[in-house]
């Protein structure tokens, strides 16, 4: 029943010499992140593949994004670091669980590829996209946004340091301008 869609970036960003997912992968390795929870997004596809190929990390597909928050709590209790990858359309699913991470002061690093704001085709993506930053801020997360491919790696590195050094929730919103707007054909 799924219509096959072709994803083609219409971003005008010049390609960084190292693709940003590869930079992020290196940042996560350097930050000792081991558990990677995700609901897949095409914007995260390359990073997910890199994690799956990395024997030092565990790629954990989730049935819903909120599972990744509880996973992060468990990992932290056990002495391990995790990261949560999702698309903006899944951010709202996390709000309750983020309240728990807030109360516990458990570090929570989440990387969110954005839909619904730069050249979006699908109107259903727009409301949650617009609500992503405000709802995450409302539940107590620090929100960083990045809209240049060359800055994603350093933004994630800074976010990871903030999260794990200060035991806070930190979300990096990766602009649709970087990942490219999906074309439905």
């Amino acid at each position, binding site marked *: 029943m799924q219509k096959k869609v072709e994803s083609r970036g219409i971003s005008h960003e010049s390609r960084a010499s190292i693709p940003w997912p590869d930079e992020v992968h290196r940042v996560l390795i350097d930050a000792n992140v081991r558990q990677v929870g995700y609901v897949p997004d095409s914007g995260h596809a390359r990073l997910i593949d890199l994690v799956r190929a990395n024997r030092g990390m*565990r790629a*954990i*597909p*989730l049935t*819903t994004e909120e599972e990744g928050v*509880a996973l992060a709590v468990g990992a932290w*209790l056990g*002495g391990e670091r995790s990261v949560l990858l999702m698309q903006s359309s899944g951010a709202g699913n996390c709000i309750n669980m983020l309240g728990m991470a807030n109360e516990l*002061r458990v570090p929570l690093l989440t990387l969110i590829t954005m839909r619904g704001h730069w050249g979006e085709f699908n109107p259903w993506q727009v409301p949650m996209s617009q609500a992503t930053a405000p709802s995450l801020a409302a539940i107590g997360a620090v929100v960083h946004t990045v809209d240049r491919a060359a800055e994603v790696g350093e933004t994630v590195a800074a976010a990871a340091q903030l999260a794990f050094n200060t035991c806070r929730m930190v979300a990096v919103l990766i602009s649709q301008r970087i990942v490219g707007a999906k074309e439905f054909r």
Partner: protein
Amino acid sequence: MKHRTPTLDRRRVVADILRQRGDALVVAGLGAPVWDTAAAGDHALNFHAWGGMGGAAMIGLGLALAQPKRRVLVITGDGELLMGLGSLATIAVQQPRNLAIIVMDNERYGETGMQDTHTRFGVDIAGMAKAAGFRASGTVFGATQLKTWIPRLYKQAGPVFAAIKVTTQPVPMVLPVRDGAAIKLRFREALLGARAFE
């Protein structure tokens, strides 16, 4: 399907289970399972959830993956587990050998007025766990059956799932620490020592 009335006493069940804990790590899901676990004796390696409904099993997964040499028990309620049914699939895919999910199934939402949950109407959560891919899964009604299950909770290669049917008989509330950061720190310090403060 005819409803079978639970007969097991929840406080005795949890006490019997935890008496054999050894160095196991315990996650208690919010509400009555937290009081049951606290009633069995305060322990630094008990993580008590006072919120995050639907997340207890996933907390157990993260902990089990981080500590593969330790047994991890999640003791939670049917309402809490029902809110996170997808986690049965997520856990089963990871196949953590050291994880057991134990549901104290009184077929009620205990904190909000004892309203019936879906298990009161025949929803078979142990069946769901089995279908998801848990290595061992079952529903426990009687004392003899419980006796054979307790060793499995600790020794059976996981993931293991047990729905233990318990009564709605009122029991005294036993409240552990409720400050989330304090619970987290106490658990981490007991488990990780000085590394907990890095």
